[in-house]
């Protein structure tokens, strides 16, 4: 008989949590294709973090991201962090889809390679992402030398006036700096969204919808001075509710994720993860 962890894990396809936190679609943590049209801009201000079970295990960060639609299918984004609190013991990962957890400058390009409108207010679409991070400090909070990283991911799904579903996955790899290297990560996510009939208001009324998001992470062990760090890396699966409110050119999204499975290689467990993101959409021409 399948255990609960197995069932939950089977619900997830490999996905990249590399898609817009606070995008027009809405997942806070999981992946979804971007929605900026050609010449459209988006400014995101996120507050995200993870709370651990021990004292001093918490992480909190502010991250500001600016995105632009180069074409209706190509979007680039860049984000900068402000670290409020740095936890050093929990397995590394990406707290939000388009925003890294580390204290790095990050740039991501998203190419929507498949798009099909299938009716009034409904479409299928898929996007591939590629990104790089560049450390803003020489050393990370755990004393390891910081190195840049690259990541690749993809997300695919369905959006309509009532239901949303996206799945995605990806891989992030950190460079080696004088024998110090963060463990690579594999991410996957699945999101289901629902806009109940009483919230199906027409433009320009506010647009509110709810999601259930699930993400999974596998982070390999890191290296310090060329030696594998036994107490590093780990696996986790988290599930939780989020919501997105859109009104004209403003968006507000937020939610929580709770671990349903954790394997932390003797590091503190995560109690929950949170994210709040404010978006502002604008057009220069």
């Amino acid at each position, binding site marked *: 008989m399948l255990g609960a962890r197995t069932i939950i894990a089977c619900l997830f396809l490999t996905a990249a949590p590399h898609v817009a936190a606070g995008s027009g*679609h809405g997942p806070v943590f999981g992946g979804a294709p971007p929605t900026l049209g050609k010449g459209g801009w988006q400014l995101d201000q996120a507050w995200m973090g993870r709370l651990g079970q021990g004292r001093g295990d918490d992480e909190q960060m502010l991250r500001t991201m600016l995105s632009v639609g180069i074409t*209706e299918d190509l979007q680039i984004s860049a984000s900068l962090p402000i670290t409020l609190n740095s936890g050093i013991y929990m397995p590394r990962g990406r707290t939000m889809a388009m925003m890294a957890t580390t204290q790095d400058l990050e740039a991501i390009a998203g190419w929507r390679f498949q798009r099909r409108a299938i009716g009034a207010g409904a479409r299928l679409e898929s996007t591939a992402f590629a990104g790089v991070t560049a450390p803003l400090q020489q050393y990370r909070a755990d004393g390891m030398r910081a190195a840049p990283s690259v990541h690749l991911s993809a997300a695919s799904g369905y959006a309509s006036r009532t239901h949303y579903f996206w799945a995605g996955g990806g891989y992030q790899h950190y460079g080696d700096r004088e024998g110090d290297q963060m463990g690579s990560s594999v991410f996957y996510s699945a999101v289901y969204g629902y806009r109940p009939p009483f919230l199906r208001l027409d433009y320009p009324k506010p647009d509110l919808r709810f999601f259930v998001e699930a993400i999974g992470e596998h982070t390999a062990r890191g290296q310090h001075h060329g030696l594998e760090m036994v107490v590093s890396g780990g696996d986790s699966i988290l599930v939780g509710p989020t919501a997105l409110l859109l009104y004209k050119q403003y968006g507000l999204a937020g939610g929580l994720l709770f671990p349903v499975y954790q394997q932390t290689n003797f590091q503190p467990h995560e109690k929950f993860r949170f994210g709040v993101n404010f978006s502002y959409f604008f057009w220069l021409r």
Partner: protein
Amino acid sequence: MSSEPSPSVRSAFVRALGASPSPRLRRTAVALADAGRAALGPQALLLLLLSAAPAHAEYRRIELKILGMDCATCAHGVRVAMQKLDGVATVELSLERAHAEVGLKPNNRLTLDQFRQVVKRNGFEPKQAAVTATGTVRDAGGTIVFDVSGVTTPLVVAPDRSAREALQQLKTAVSAKSTALFEITGTVQQARDGVESIAITSVKPRQ
């Protein structure tokens, strides 16, 4: 030459410019008509009447079906982009009905294709359109065509009795080689070979 414009010329002048959207132009027209008796003869006044009367082929209203638009921000982006087109007066977007209704200013030079491009640039798919436009009609090799904003579109009749009567009215105008303007309301449809036509539902001569 009489220095006094005839009543018929004056009234025709004012009536033609009464159709003008510009209140200032209308007031100017009345003042000119009254002052014309001193400076202009009736023939010159008639020329002024014809040159001042609006004779521009243009779209007046466009309703465009848009597929794939699911959220408020989607609609807002399309609305902002359409409002930036020179000549747009009003834009109303509906997510539930999946369409945009655009009211255009007089003397605009906009084409239907420009609105389609706006929709595509925002990542959505434009579908059928219903238009109200003022333009001229002519015979092009046996097909009645409608010229508006530099685009020529064949006219066909919608399956409707009033539409058949409207088309007959146009055929009569074409036969008489009339250069009058007509306001046409209809649905733009695309054949399999990509050729567009307007299935007219109503026709009104423009004054």
